[in-house]
C-alpha cells in the first residue's frame, strides 16, 4: 500500500471519480428525468451516512437512533437563524456543536455497553429526543416543527454568495461533503482509525492491549453525532424548516439501510452508494407505485439475506474474481 505518502494519502482515485460525478451532476440531472433539488438531498444524506458508517462499519456499533442527532442539527440551525443572527457558518457550527453535545451525553451512558444493550439503548435515547422535539412546543414548534427558517447568504468576509438557488446550495453541500470525505478518510487511516477498527474486531483484546476503549467509543460516537448534526443543519437549510419526522425511528432506520445496501460494512464508499440508491429508488419506485416502501423493504430484505456486503461488496467480489481469472490466464505459461 503506497497510500500513506504525499497527496495520495489525502486524495484517492475513487475520491476523484466521486467528486467529478457529483460536480457535474447539476448539468445532467435534469436530462435523466430527475430534478436539481434531489441532488441536494442526496449529498446531505451522503454526509449523514458517511458519519454514521464511522460508527457502524468501522467501530461495529449499531446505533438505531441516529436520526436524533440529525434532527438536533436541523433544529439547532433553525433556532440559531431565527433567534440569534443569520449566518450559515454560525448555524452549521451550532448544528455540529449541539449534535455533538447530545451525542456526547448519550455516549456517556452507552460506551460501557455492547451488543443488544447498546442497540436497545440507542433506540431508547433516540426516542427521547424525538419525543422532546414533539412535546417541547415553545422551543421546537411541536409536530409542525420550525417553519420559514431563513437561508442566509454565504459570507466570506470580503464577498458573499447567495444560496437561494438549489444549484448554489448543492455546491455548498457538496463542498461540505468533500471536506467530510477527506476528513474521514484521513481519520480512518490514522492511528485512531486503527484502534476503532480493532474495537470492531475484538473490544476486549483492544482493552487488554491498553487502549481506553470507553474513551474511543465515546469519542467516535460524539464525532459521528456531530457529522449527523452537520447533515441535519444542511437539511434544514435545504428544507427551510425543521420537523420531528427526521428524528423518528424510521428515519434512523433509513440511514442504517442506506449504509448496509451500499456496502458500508466492507467499503468506505458504501454509504455514498447507498444514499444515492435510496433516493433514486424513492423517486423511481415512488413514481411507479405509491407503495414504494414495500418494494424497497423487500429489496432490502433480499440484500440482507443474499448479499449482506451490499453493492460495494458485490463490486469487490467481482473485481476479485476478475483479477483471479486474469492471474489464472497468465499462469499456464509456465506449464
Amino acid at each position, binding site marked *: 500500500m503506497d497510500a500513506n505518502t504525499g497527496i495520495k494519502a489525502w486524495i484517492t482515485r475513487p475520491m476523484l471519480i466521486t467528486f467529478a460525478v457529483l460536480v457535474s451532476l447539476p448539468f445532467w440531472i435534469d436530462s435523466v428525468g430527475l430534478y436539481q433539488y434531489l441532488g441536494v438531498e442526496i449529498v446531505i444524506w451522503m454526509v449523514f451516512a458517511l458519519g454514521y458508517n464511522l460508527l*457502524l462499519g468501522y467501530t461495529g456499533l*449499531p446505533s438505531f437512533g441516529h436520526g436524533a442527532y440529525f434532527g438536533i442539527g436541523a433544529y439547532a440551525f433553525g433556532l440559531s437563524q431565527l433567534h440569534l443572527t443569520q449566518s450559515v457558518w454560525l448555524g452549521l457550527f451550532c448544528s455540529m456543536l449541539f449534535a455533538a453535545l447530545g451525542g456526547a451525553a448519550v455516549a456517556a*451512558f452507552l460506551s*460501557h*455497553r*455492547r*451488543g*443488544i*444493550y447498546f*442497540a*436497545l*439503548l440507542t*433506540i*431508547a*435515547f433516540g*426516542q*427521547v429526543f424525538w*419525543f*422532546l422535539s414533539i*412535546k417541547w412546543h415553545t422551543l421546537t414548534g411541536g409536530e409542525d416543527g420550525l417553519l420559514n427558517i431563513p437561508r442566509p447568504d454565504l459570507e466570506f468576509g470580503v464577498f458573499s454568495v447567495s444560496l437561494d438557488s438549489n444549484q448554489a446550495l448543492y455546491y455548498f453541500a457538496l463542498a461540505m461533503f468533500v471536506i467530510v470525505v477527506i476528513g474521514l478518510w484521513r481519520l480512518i487511516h490514522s492511528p485512531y482509525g486503527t484502534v476503532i477498527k480493532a474495537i470492531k474486531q475484538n473490544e476486549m483484546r483492544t482493552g487488554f492491549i491498553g487502549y481506553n476503549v470507553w474513551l474511543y467509543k465515546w469519542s467516535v460516537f460524539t464525532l459521528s453525532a456531530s457529522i449527523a448534526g452537520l447533515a441535519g443543519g444542511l437539511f434544514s437549510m435545504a428544507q427551510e424548516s425543521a420537523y420531528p419526522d427526521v428524528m423518528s*425511528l*424510521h428515519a434512523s*432506520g433509513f440511514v*442504517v*439501510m442506506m449504509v*448496509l445496501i451500499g456496502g458500508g460494512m466492507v467499503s468506505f464508499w458504501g454509504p455514498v452508494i447507498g444514499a444515492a440508491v435510496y433516493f433514486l429508488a424513492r423517486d423511481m419506485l415512488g413514481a411507479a407505485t405509491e*407503495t414504494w*416502501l*414495500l418494494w*424497497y*423493504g*423487500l429489496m*432490502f*430484505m433480499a440484500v*440482507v*439475506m*443474499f448479499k*449482506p456486503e451490499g453493492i460495494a461488496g458485490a463490486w469487490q467480489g467481482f473485481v476479485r474474481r476478475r483479477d483471479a481469472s486474469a492471474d489464472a490466464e497468465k499462469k499456464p505459461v509456465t506449464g
Partner: protein
Amino acid sequence: MDFLLNLAPHLINGIGLGLLFALIALGFMLIVGVMEVINLAHGSLFALGAYFAMMIIGPEPQWFGSMGEWYVGLPAGLRYSIALVLAPILVGLVGMLLEYCLRGTYGKDPLFGLLLTFGAAMVIEELIRVFWGSGEQVLQIPAAISGAFIWNGLIWSSYRFFAAAFAIAAIFMVWLFLERTPYGAIIKAGAHDSEMVRALGINLSRLRLFVFGFGVMLAALAGIIMAPIWGLRPHVGVDAVIPAFLIIVLGGVGSFGGAVVAGVLVGLTVGITSAYASEWSLMSMYLLLIVVITFRARGLFGKKSVLEN
C-alpha cells in the same frame, strides 16, 4: 386515602398497560435468547395481530357468501374469542415465515438479523397500509367488556379491568408453559446455550421456528388487547415495541421476573404521570430507564450473557 382512591384508576390502567408491555417483551426476549436476533418486526406483528383480529371479528366479512352471514350472526363474544385464538396463530405463521428468511443470518454478525427484521417491519407496515388503509380503524369489542361503571363515586372503564386481568392471566400461562412443561425447559435451555441443546439431540431449526412463532404470537395477543385502548393505525407497533425494549433493558435481558417487574414499574410510572402530566406520560419511562441503567448497568435482574459480545 382520597388521594389513593383518585389515583386508583390510573394505577389499574398502568398495571394493565405495563403487563401488556411485559407480554410483548417476553416474546421478544425468547426470540433474542434462542436466536440472538433483535426482532425489530415485533411491533409490526403486534399491529398485524390487531388487524387480523379486526377482520375476524367483523362486522362485515363479505367472503364465503351465506357462511359469512351465518358467521356475523354469531354472538359478538364468541367472534371475539375466536379472534383471540385465531389471529395470534395467523401472526405466528407469518413469524415462522420471517424466521425462515432469517436462517441465512445465523452465525453471522447479529446486526444482519436485526436489519432483516427492520426491513420486514417496513414491509409488514406497508402491507397493512395496502390492505386496510392508513386511517384509524376500530376493533369491535363485545358489550360485556366495553362501557364503564361507577364504583365508590369514580368512573371505571370495564375494558381496562379486562385488559389488566387478561394480561395477568396470559403472563401466568406463559410462566406455566416455560417453567412447568418439558417444551418450556427446552426453550429456556435453548435461550441459555442453543449449541448445547443441539448437541443433546434437539432439532434446533424446529425449535427456532417454534420459538419465533410463539414469541410473535404473544405480541399479536397483546396487540389485540391493546387495540381498543390505543386505536389501530399501521404504525401503532412502534408505540408498543419501544416500551417493550425499555422493559427488557430495565429488567435485564433474559430474566422473566425482571420483565414482569419492569413492566409493572413502567406501567405504574406511566399511569401516575398520566394522572398529573399526561403530555409527558411516555417520557417518564425513558427517564426511569436512564435512572436505572445509570446505577445498574444490566438492568434490575440482568446477568452477563453471550449477547453482549
